Each structure stands twice: as structure tokens, then as C-alpha cells.
């Protein structure tokens, strides 16, 4: 067995002028894992992905993909990465079949049969020029290009952004099929946390260029609980206690998100006083809001 992670990022920092885009980021993605990268716009997701693709050089720290440096060994790295971005940087004057032929020329492992199968499934018109396709069909064409050479690592940057639910379903299906296919690895960023929750094994939350936390999705869900407390006397401010985030309320009733070992919750609550009137599991969206302060979907709507 090869235990080396597919992606290893150590203490990566990046500045654009006075803007600290990435700040001491360390992240490992083992083989066969689906990593969901979450964060608000400007949190550093795309900048991080660009380092993985070798489009940006590490100013501080290091980036290794398949044990190689993506900047000094672009061929060794990129020939094994399938990549789809939100806007799909596809040459728009090409027809779909020309795009496929062009991509096949780059990748020795291009699988014509698989490309054909995906094309049929997505009902893509291969003779249509890319600039005549709908946004959804253009994304599907991009997805065929990202998948048809069966890359060891699939990187999707906000693949679902602005797409209708049917196209999003195709993209999710593609992620699922990719991992079912012999433990390939997927890194995808998304602000649709319901989707992240369905397909990710691990998640990482970025905020202002830093990794707020990262972990197995199941563990992250177990480590967060929503609690509501009722106090015998009204309070002007919430109680302050380690392990409790995002207090809100007034008077006698206050709610918070507990973040920690669930077996220590009873003990942690005892120190606060007050009676527990509600205790619930939380969705990934609730967890994200507790850490970041607002929902990524609310932000997109704004």
C-alpha cells in the first residue's frame, strides 16, 4: 500500500499585494477521499486550487501533488488531474467533438468509449460550437473533458455554481462515479453545503485564507450539537464558556452550538447553569454558520 497523500500542503502562505489570500494553510488529502472545501467568496478556495494545479507558485510553504511539485513538474502532475472550474475555461470557438479531440491529444489515457458514454448520458450535441451551448451543457462538456482520461485526481472549483438542479445532479453523479471507480480522489469546492454533505468524506472550512478546521464529515457532525438553555434569571449577555460558539438569544433563553467531544457535553453544560430545553444535531450549513458567521448561500443571494 502506498500511504502517501495525494495532496500535501504544508504551511502555505500567499499574498497579493497587501491582501493575505492564504495564511499558513496545511492540508492533506489521502487517496480515495472526497474532500469538500467550504468558505465564503474570497476565503481563498480558488487560490488554494490554483496552487494545486501549479498555476501559482508557493511564496511560503510547500505544495505536493502525487509527491511532486506542480510548478516544477507540471506534466507529471497535470496529466493526472481532471479539472473543472465554475466558468469552464474552454475554447468557446470549438465544436464539442473538436474539444474532445483536442483534449484526447493531451492525455495518453483518454478513453474514447467512456467519453462517448458520458456524451450520450448528458445528451450533448457534439457538432454544436461551445459558444452556442447553454451554461449547463457547457459544464457537461467540461465534465466529459475532466473525466474521460480517468484522472487519479478530480478537482472541481464551484462546479455547481449557477446551474440548474438537473445539471448539478449530473455533476454529483460524476463525482460519485469517479470515486466508485477504484478509489480515485476528489477535491471540490462548493457553497451548496447540502451537496457537500451528500458526497464528501472530509471537509475543510477556509476563512480569510486560514483553515478554520478540517476533519472527517461524520466526526464533524458528531462534534457539533445545537443546544438551547433556559436560565432562571434573565441575562443581558450569554454565558461564556469554552466549546460553545455562536450564542444568540435574550432574557432567559439562549442558544449556542457546542463544538467538542459529545461525551463531555453534559459536563460542559453543567458549568453553565440553566436547564437544557433543546438539543439537536446540526446540518453542515448550521455548522458552517456557527464558525464563519453567515451562510455561503445567503452570501450568494446578496
Amino acid at each position, binding site marked *: 500500500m502506498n500511504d502517501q497523500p495525494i495532496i500535501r500542503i504544508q504551511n502555505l502562505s500567499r499574498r497579493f499585494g497587501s491582501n493575505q489570500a492564504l495564511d499558513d494553510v496545511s492540508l492533506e488529502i489521502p487517496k480515495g477521499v*472526497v474532500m469538500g472545501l467550504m468558505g465564503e467568496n474570497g476565503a481563498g478556495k480558488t487560490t488554494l486550487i490554483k496552487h494545486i494545479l501549479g498555476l501559482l507558485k508557493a511564496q511560503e510553504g510547500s505544495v505536493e501533488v502525487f509527491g511532486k511539485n506542480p510548478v516544477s513538474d507540471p506534466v507529471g502532475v497535470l496529466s493526472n488531474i481532471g479539472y473543472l472550474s465554475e466558468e469552464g475555461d474552454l475554447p468557446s470557438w470549438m465544436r464539442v467533438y473538436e474539444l474532445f479531440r483536442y483534449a484526447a491529444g493531451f492525455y495518453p489515457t483518454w478513453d474514447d468509449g467512456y467519453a462517448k458514454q458520458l456524451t450520450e448520458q448528458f445528451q450533448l450535441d457534439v457538432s454544436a460550437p461551445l459558444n452556442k451551448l447553454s451554461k449547463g451543457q457547457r459544464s457537461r462538456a467540461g465534465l466529459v473533458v475532466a473525466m474521460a482520461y480517468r484522472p487519479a485526481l478530480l478537482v472541481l472549483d464551484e462546479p455547481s455554481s449557477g446551474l440548474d438542479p438537473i445539471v448539478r445532479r449530473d455533476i454529483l453523479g460524476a463525482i*460519485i462515479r469517479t470515486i*466508485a471507480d477504484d478509489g480515485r480522489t476528489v477535491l471540490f469546492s462548493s457553497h451548496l453545503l447540502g451537496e457537500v454533505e*451528500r458526497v*464528501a468524506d472530509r471537509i475543510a472550512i477556509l476563512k480569510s485564507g486560514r483553515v478554520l478546521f478540517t476533519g472527517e464529515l*461524520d466526526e464533524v457532525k*458528531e462534534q457539533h450539537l445545537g443546544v438551547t438553555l433556559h436560565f432562571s434569571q434573565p441575562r443581558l449577555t450569554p454565558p461564556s464558556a469554552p466549546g460553545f460558539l455562536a450564542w444568540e438569544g435574550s432574557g432567559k433563553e439562549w442558544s449556542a452550538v457546542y463544538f467538542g467531544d459529545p461525551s463531555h457535553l453534559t459536563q460542559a453544560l453543567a458549568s453553565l447553569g440553566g436547564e437544557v*430545553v*433543546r438539543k439537536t*444535531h446540526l446540518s453542515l450549513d448550521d455548522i458552517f454558520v456557527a464558525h464563519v458567521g453567515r451562510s455561503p448561500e445567503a452570501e450568494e443571494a446578496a
Partner: protein
Amino acid sequence: MQIFISEQDQTPIYQQIVNQVRLQVSSGRLSPEEELPSIRALAERLMVNPNTVARAYRELEQAGIVTKRRTTGSYISAGAAPMDREARQELLADKVDALLADARQLNLDSTDVIDLIQKRSNPN
């Protein structure tokens, strides 16, 4: 076998699968020796990570509800149905917890709740 995943349900997805299979076995909708869909097929149908389905199947296997046969796939175990009383009760645990929490807020204790349950189950 029909499984439905709810994004509103805060229960982890693997647990939703485990619970639904258990329920369908104990109600007879799934019979002993019945074959389950492959991990990959179910993952694609539910649009969830195959590792999640694999985890659910693993837990069902450990609970003796599902048996894996080396080459052919996963089946409902011959002795799977019916579930014992404790396991069936366990499926209601979350709902009972929620009920008890509401009762506490109304200043009712468990005796009051049991009393109410008995009244409701014998309306005459």
C-alpha cells in the same frame, strides 16, 4: 429496496440508510435472502458517497442483518427478521427523546407521558 435520503434530517446519511433497512426488514418489506443493490448502484441512485453506503452496509453486517457473500453481493441475512424488541425500541429512541424534552418544558414527567400514551392508544 427503496431508500430515501433527506437533507433536512440531521441524522448522518449512513445512519439514515441503516435505519431504513432495519425498519424494512422488521416490517417484512425486505425478506431474508433478498439481495441488496451493490454499493456503487445504491450510491449512484441516492447520489451519495459510495463510502457512506459501504459504511451503512458494514454496520448492517455487524448487526447481523446483512450477510456479504464473497463474490455475489450482499443479502438480507436468513435470520435477520424479526428484530428483537430492544432493537425495534431503539428505532424510536430519538422520537421519545424529543417527546420527553417537550414534556419537560410543559412540566410533565415521564409518568404523565406514559399515562398520555396509554390514553391515546386506547381511545375508548
